[in-house]
């Protein structure tokens, strides 16, 4: 289907876990370095070939770096804002009532937000103030702050099986695994020699996680033996911005990179690179796989376009 043009640079894209036609996009002006941001809620047409339409948009005073759908309410969105705030939007409410909440605790840019798929009222935010915060929807202040990283935390990801376990990726070159019941991190994985930009858990194996790094590689780790990576996936030519496991196939991963490409990987096979999509003309920084429609992919980048396509088809096909 045709790409959707957004006014700012795309930063993140997420399929709704409730509605297969819903898509949320986080965008930022001026590449997120300075300027406003906007959250777009898009509707994917049921018939391929029809254009994507926007159903809602929320302006913010600063860049929106990430967005997450609530796992408990189909209309709730949590946005990570560069001014350090976390904003909650309800697409069912009129624009004047949004944002529903603005949670101001982080002292620096909030770079990522991840909604807990198991305990569905809580979410994590990762910030450049080196900390991760745990929030619940109905609480005005954070439940906990996890502050061990020595540099910006770029991402945090809940374990899909264990509701209290999450991993965080930081510019201090480590990935830490946490249990919210524990006072500190339970595991420190010196995952890369360069900054780690993203981490995600395998949806079918609760001990496997993948990391994306500035060193251009993706590494897959088994937390039971994290001294060496399970595998190292090379193929991107620049820093890898995000890597996500497929919700449908255990070994399938999707990644996007500053080399402007989106890649699909199967880390279990010899030739791990399954597919490469070259449709973006600027940095590809946001990518997602639909939970509800197998093989449906979405990506966004600094070329101000949002692509939604079925795996195996050309994203640019009209």
């Amino acid at each position, binding site marked *: 289907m045709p790409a959707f043009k957004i006014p700012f640079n795309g930063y993140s894209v997420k399929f709704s876990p409730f509605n297969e036609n819903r898509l949320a996009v986080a965008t930022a*002006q*001026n*590449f997120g*370095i*300075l*300027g*406003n941001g*906007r959250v777009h809620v898009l509707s994917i047409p049921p018939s391929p070939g029809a254009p994507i339409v926007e159903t809602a948009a929320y302006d913010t*005073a*600063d860049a929106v770096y990430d967005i997450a759908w609530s796992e*408990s*309410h*189909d*209309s*709730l969105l949590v946005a990570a804002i*560069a*001014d*350090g705030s976390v904003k909650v939007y*309800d697409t*069912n409410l009129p624009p*004047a*009532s*949004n*944002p*529903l*909440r*603005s949670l*101001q605790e982080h002292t*620096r840019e909030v770079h990522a937000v991840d909604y807990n798929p198991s305990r*569905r009222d809580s979410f994590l935010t990762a910030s*450049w103030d080196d900390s991760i915060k745990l929030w*619940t*929807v109905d*609480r*005005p202040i954070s*439940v*906990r702050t996890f*502050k061990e990283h020595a540099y*910006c935390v770029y991402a945090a990801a809940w374990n899909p099986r*264990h509701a*209290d376990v999450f991993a965080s990726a930081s510019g201090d070159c480590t990935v830490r695994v946490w*249990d919210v*019941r524990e*006072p*500190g*991190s*339970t*595991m420190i994985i010196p995952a890369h020699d360069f*900054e780690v930009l993203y981490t995600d858990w395998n949806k079918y194996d*609760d*001990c496997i996680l993948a990391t994306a790094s500035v*060193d251009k590689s993706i590494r897959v780790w088994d*937390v039971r033996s994290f001294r060496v990576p399970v595998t190292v996936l090379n193929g991107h030519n*620049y820093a890898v*911005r995000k890597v996500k496991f497929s919700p449908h196939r255990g070994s399938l991963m999707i990644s996007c990179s*500053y080399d402007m490409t989106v890649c699909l990987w199967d880390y279990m096979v010899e030739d791990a690179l399954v597919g490469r999509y*070259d449709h973006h*003309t*600027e940095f590809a920084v946001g990518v997602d796989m639909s939970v509800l429609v197998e093989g449906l992919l979405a990506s966004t980048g*600094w070329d101000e376009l949002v692509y939604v396509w079925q795996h195996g088809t050309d994203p640019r096909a009209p």
Partner: protein
Amino acid sequence: MAMRELVTGGATCAVPGSSSSSSNPLGALANALIGSSSKTQERLKEIPVATPTGPENQFFQDGVPLRTLPGSEQDGAFLPPNAQGSEFLRTFHSAYQNDLADAWDDVQHGPLPHVVSDMRAGTVLRPPPTLDGPPQRMLSGLLHSFVDSSRGGIPFRPAQLPLLGLSERDKQCIRDRSTIMGRHFFADKSEDFINSQVNALLHSLDIDSDVRAKGPLPGRYRELEEYWNESQGMMRPVPHVADGWANEFNQLGVNPGNPESWARSFEQQHGSNGWASEFEQSQLMAADRMRGANLPNMAAMEQSRMLAHTLAQNNDPKFQNSKFLQFVSKMSRGELIIDDNQVKPAPGDWASEFQQQYNSGPSWTDEYLRNRGPDQWADEFTAKREQVQSADDQWANEFSKLHMNDWADEFGQQVAEGVFGEGTANDWANAYDEFMNEQIAMKQQSDSSRGVYVFSDMNPYVGHPNPLKEGQELFRKGLLSEAILALEAEVMKNPNNSEGWRLLGITHAENDDDQQAIAAMMKAEEADPSNLEVLLALGVSHTNELEQAAALRYLYGWLHHHPKYKTLTTPEMPLSFYHADVAGLFNEAAQMSPEDADVHIVLGVLYNLSREYDRAIASFQTALNLKPNDYSLWNKLGATQANSVQSADAISAYQRALDLKPNYVRAWANMGIGYANQGMYEESIPYYVRALTMNPKADNAWQYLRISLRYETSTKGSEKHSFYSMTCTTTLITIPLANFVAPPPGMTCWKLAILGIWMLSKRSSLCNRQAPPVTRVPPPPHSLGQWWRFVVHR
């Protein structure tokens, strides 16, 4: 690790209390307009539960206090990295034990410390801010090129922006975010490369890269005084000193809210009369800072060359098609310039011409000239000090690599050698000498093109309905450079308009640009060969250029075409002229009609040509009795007196001319000559500078200033020496840059030059004349910091 400090930067990097403030100027405006008070105390609407999930109540109830949350009291502690695995696995697989559920219930049911209604604190921007204003577009372009530069490790070539009204917070955002993101883009580059990329961006946005991230140092005033004392003497060849004072100075500079305390503390140290000496010292620093500031610019130029190189090598069509890249490469080729808050396509001529000489000319000069307070200079200085140090060796090399033309090379070497050495002022003057000599050589080479009128680029008067009238009006008002533009527009429209050419020539002559004056007058003569005023003016201009034959021909022509005196001349124009013959003819004419001032004027000119100054003075004085309000005549008299030994008289003659016409550039320059002829080089400098600020193209004034400067610096003691030469080099730098880059009126660099003049006038109390509009001198500021701001931000 500097980057680390910069990014985490402690409290100064954090932006407390700005939750609802916009991060950009427009957003801030919108906030100001609609009020950021959207923290309306409404009750939180309950979230509609569209899809009930999970057995637990999603909304809290009263219960256990918050601090009993699991682990929250231990926030911050962590396990040692070793022995994690087993620990992790143990807890990992106990995820659904009862105690966990309890703990979570605690979380769910903990009480709220604040009332719920306080939570609706979102900043609602309504209507959304317009994002297409020029500043945003400018910024966007710059950031584009920054991001762009990451492709293939292309060095970022900063383009200087006008002041965008970025707040401190905006600047922090740009600094921090571009640093962090830069580390992603430039992953396989060294830390130094990343730093230089980011610094290039920050530099062009006038953001200091690390100074402000540090907290204030204690006891800074005392230390500052030490640094000042050091700087007053010789600059010790220790980089740390300069670094330190820049830091220190900056500490003060970024504290504009408190000028009084600064002044007070200064008074404590120097007594209430210490201001002048302080100012002097600060001048030293300013000049020193300029050298520091120059280095990053040079580095940026080198980067732009590398960029072009990288571009040429990158064959990936995708990268080639990137709009970022295209933007950057256009900028580097000078096809885009930044002017007046807009990115514009460069007009063909000057950009390309300029481009040939200066690879990345518009931007580095722009940067140089942009509004720059001492703090910013200091910032740059500190930000780039590593470069400064390493550049000491490499700089000259870089220059030659850049195929800069020679003066810049010379200039660069001088600076590089003299960055922390002594006697820098002399080096500078010498470097400038070299430059001027080469300019002269070039001029002589291009003598074949003599008499060809060179039009200004980017003439705003093209298309003006009546440029002649406008030009006359501007000329009358004394706005000579403007008048030239208007008149050029006129003669472009009507190339056969003799009057337009004539007035243009006169204006150039008054603006002390005889080359252009002669070219214009020759055009006027072409259009109307018998125009007496044109012939007289041509005669005078050629006299000024010491071209006796040509001068005589025109003066004879004047007589030849004059209705009254044509009987004195033969019907055929002679092939060659002898001075005595022509003078004789004019003497006859003067006897015929002694009341004709023009004849006496021509006689005066003629006697100047033969260096019979006493006679010339007598002729001019006679003419002045007839035409006492002819300012150009007063000027001629003054010039003649100056050329003889009566320089003191010349001063008062110039004074009369300037009384009649305050913007008379030539008279200002001549005033300087008058002083210089009396050996008063020091006093002559402000007049040259003032003339040059009004017309930087006045080559003669440049020459004279150079001479004065050289004598001044070689004859005076070291203290004065450095003071004046620093001052003048300030001017020397800014004005030639203006010459090359700026459309003449209203550029910031002029203000820097004015600063120099103003300082000199403070010192010598010479320039008590009411200033012409272009060089209006502002009242003395309360403190140095304020003064700079006044100059820089006006």
